[in-house]
């Protein structure tokens, strides 16, 4: 099959996939007797139409950017990192430990340390599957999935048995002082009142640039891509595949852990059970829809942020549409952009090349 022009591959195809997902989602909405156009309107308004909703959208987007980058980074080395969920969760431990240790200090000091400490914890958690893949050949897909489960159990134990202060009923750590928390944008920008979007959002934007630089502008990125595309050629070139795999997995874990800075440091101010809440898994869809490129990851993270925030708004505004239906629509987007992302490629390619191919002579 003839490859599509780049713009069609990068813009048209994802757009068609999303449109298709919405079309089928619309049919579902229609089947329960609701107006799909009205539903889309509510969704868009809920996500972008007013300050607080937009703030929430950006807050979710922040999570999805980090999780998406965690998957993308590993993907460039040919690894499928299913573990951002667990890596972010364990990263939360690093964030809260440094936060509690320095509780009461100004956020300007604590915020960078939260980044570093969370990154270290997330990196350590992801390093183990990386090590097992590099040295033992244990497939990283399997090990990262298992590490998600281990993270849930381990963190559950740590939170409820160790971090939970006496006299508190719910399973959560002690809270951070207001001055120590990562400041939310509403304290500077009136528009974002009542929304949790915080400084970590800018960290996410910076991370997009950082990843671009790392993958396409550094020697390390060159090696990562060589390993990901052709491990035999990498060995020929004297690039250590083992080292590359271990480093890139640790890096991926560090990026995933930034989800914890956003949530634990910026919103909750404490470590609660299962705070990641599926953001790590959404990151897989984000990375694939964004084709591992930071621009794509940024845009698809925004799309999913919109779906999350707008979907909640929709469930609230249209009682006929339940929470489960929103999840179904989100799942449709993932299905069409991720699992069946190439479904439209064939028809599209024929559309592009059919008319002139047999006759033309170029």
């Amino acid at each position, binding site marked *: *099959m*003839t*490859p599509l022009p780049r713009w069609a591959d990068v813009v048209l195809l994802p757009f068609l996939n999303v449109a298709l997902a919405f079309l089928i989602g619309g049919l579902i909405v229609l089947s329960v007797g609701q107006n799909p156009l009205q539903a889309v309107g509510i969704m868009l308004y809920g996500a972008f139409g007013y300050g607080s909703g937009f703030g929430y959208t950006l807050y979710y987007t922040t999570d999805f950017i980090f999780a998406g980058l965690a998957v993308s980074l590993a993907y460039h080395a040919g690894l499928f990192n299913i573990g951002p969920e667990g890596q972010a969760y364990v990263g939360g431990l690093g964030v809260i430990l440094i936060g509690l240790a320095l509780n009461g200090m100004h956020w300007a000091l604590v915020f960078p340390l939260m980044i570093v400490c969370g990154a270290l914890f997330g990196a350590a958690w992801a390093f183990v599957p990386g090590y097992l893949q590099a040295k033992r050949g244990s497939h990283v897909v399997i090990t990262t999935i298992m590490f998600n489960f281990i993270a849930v159990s381990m963190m559950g134990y740590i939170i409820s048995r160790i971090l939970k202060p006496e006299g508190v009923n719910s399973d959560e750590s002690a809270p951070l002082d207001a001055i120590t928390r990562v400041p939310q944008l509403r304290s500077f920008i009136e528009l974002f009142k009542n929304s949790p979007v915080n400084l970590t959002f800018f960290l996410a934007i910076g991370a997009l640039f950082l990843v671009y630089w790392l993958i396409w*502008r*550094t*020697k*390390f*990125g*060159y*090696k990562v*891509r*060589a390993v990901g*595309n*052709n491990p*035999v*050629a*990498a*060995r*020929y*070139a*004297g*690039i*250590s*595949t*083992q*080292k590359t795999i271990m480093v890139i997995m640790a890096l991926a874990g560090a990026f995933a852990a930034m989800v914890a800075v956003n949530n634990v440091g910026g919103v909750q101010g404490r470590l609660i059970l299962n705070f990641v809440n599926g953001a790590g898994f959404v990151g897989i869809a984000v990375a694939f829809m964004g084709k591992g490129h930071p621009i794509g990851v940024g845009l698809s993270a925004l799309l999913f942020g919109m779906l999350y925030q707008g979907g909640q708004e929709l469930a609230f505004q249209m009682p006929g549409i339940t929470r489960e239906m929103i999840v179904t629509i989100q799942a449709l987007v993932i299905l069409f952009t991720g699992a069946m992302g190439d479904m439209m490629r064939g028809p599209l390619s024929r559309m592009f*090349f059919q008319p002139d*191919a*047999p006759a*033309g*002579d*170029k």
Partner: protein
Amino acid sequence: MTGLNPTNEQRSSGAAASALAIELVGINKHFGPVHANKDIHLAVKRGTVHGIVGENGAGKSTLMSILYGFYTADSGTIHVDGVAHKITDSRHALALGIGMVHQHFMLVDNFTVLENVVLGAEDSALLTPTLNRARGHLKDLARDYGLDIDPDAIVGNLSVGQQQRVEILKALYRGAETLILDEPTGVLTPAEADHLFRILGKLRAEGKTIILITHKLREIMAITDEVSVMRQGEMVETLPTAETSPEHLAELMVGRRVLLRVEKGAAKPGKVLLEVENLVVTDDFGTPRVKGVNFQVRAGEIVGIAGVAGNGQSELLESISGMRDQKSGTIRVHGNALKISGDDGADRARSAGLAHVPEDRLRMGLVTKFNAWENAILGYQDSYGEGPALDISAARDAAREYMKKFDVRPADLDLKTANFSGGNQQKLVLAREMERDPEVLIVGQPTRGVDIGAIEFIHNQIIKMRDAGKAILLVSVELDEIRSLSDRILVIFDGQIVGEADPATADETELGLRMTGSHADNVETDPGTLPEHETPVDQTLVEMSPKDNSGRDTN
């Protein structure tokens, strides 16, 4: 009879004696913007061996794929025995009596010969009746065509030549009257190739028609009755083999005069630059492949290693270049022992002054998804830029210079490497490895799947390196190439150097015998001892899909 459209003339003059088995009329095929076959006319007479030659990308494989039903032509008709057919798939082609022997065998290694032959042609749910019928049929075929083979042997244990015979049997069992052979001798020893040609001769005598795709002009001269030359998707000329010469054919293929002989002066060997002592190397499964090899390569000489593929050459090259850990023994460059182990050993080998043109450029030498400039620094990436950042403009400058110097076409730094032709990919690899001015150059299969025009250039570059006082170790399965380039020939068999020869005086038959581990007149190779041909699965897949022409080694 030499016109572009010989059909009418041939029809009338040929009469019954040379009725056409296959006739292609006005075949056109496009792959996107690539016009792979341009208005092709081809007439193949029944009971002849018809050769098709042409450079990579000339469209030979596409044409044969159309005939075999793998592709459908955009326009044009196919006549089989004078009747026009629209061949839809390979099953249809088989039903019309057209069989194909692929370059890379489509055999199930752990099946017996018999099981392989009936695979896909079982005529009942129970296997036994089919097998019994096939056994009788095979016996007849073996008797008629000299295709002797034990029907109960496991295919994986057979030599390459024997496996090829199984492929031929498969086609004949399905009733093929016309056999297409795609580069059949690429993996064979000279003795096996001779055997194959005897079989082809018998098939011809029995009235079968054979279409032979090859790039070895010598074979065309030896066995074919007529030969068709293709160039850039067009059929240039079809002529009787008796009325042509290799030089003429090469000129037709390339479109200009080509020197088929390598011109070089005498070697002036200097001090020893590369020294290999008692080297033992195992393959990925721990089986020894190189078993105690000793040799030296001096400055200013080319040492060629001749051998049938799979006798340890690959492991030897990979070990010297740091891609494979050595079990024991020493490799010295400039007298310094190389300590190369771990999965980044190749980096240390390069630092020691060793450059390596790998045997399999697609699998090893290039990252095909990278752009040209990215591949131009593969292996040397750490020398571009200080600190963590890659100095992209320096890398691009180097790539631009390499591509200009080695005439890599198109000279597009940002073109994906997969989209270059095989010859241009190889030139890119050669440029990268030669232009860093290494002391020792290890070259594996420098011209595998490379066009005749580019072969000449590549050979001259290697000679130039030699004359500049570098030590060059050359491995090739092309005996001709080894003989014409090398100053000394070492013969490798079963992981050991079994002899040394002077290329000027070496006798081809003698070399061929040594390559198969025999010295006397025991021509037929023993099925058990000949290591099986190594065909990386991924490369086979690339080559099986002719859409991606750049990935094809041979066409």
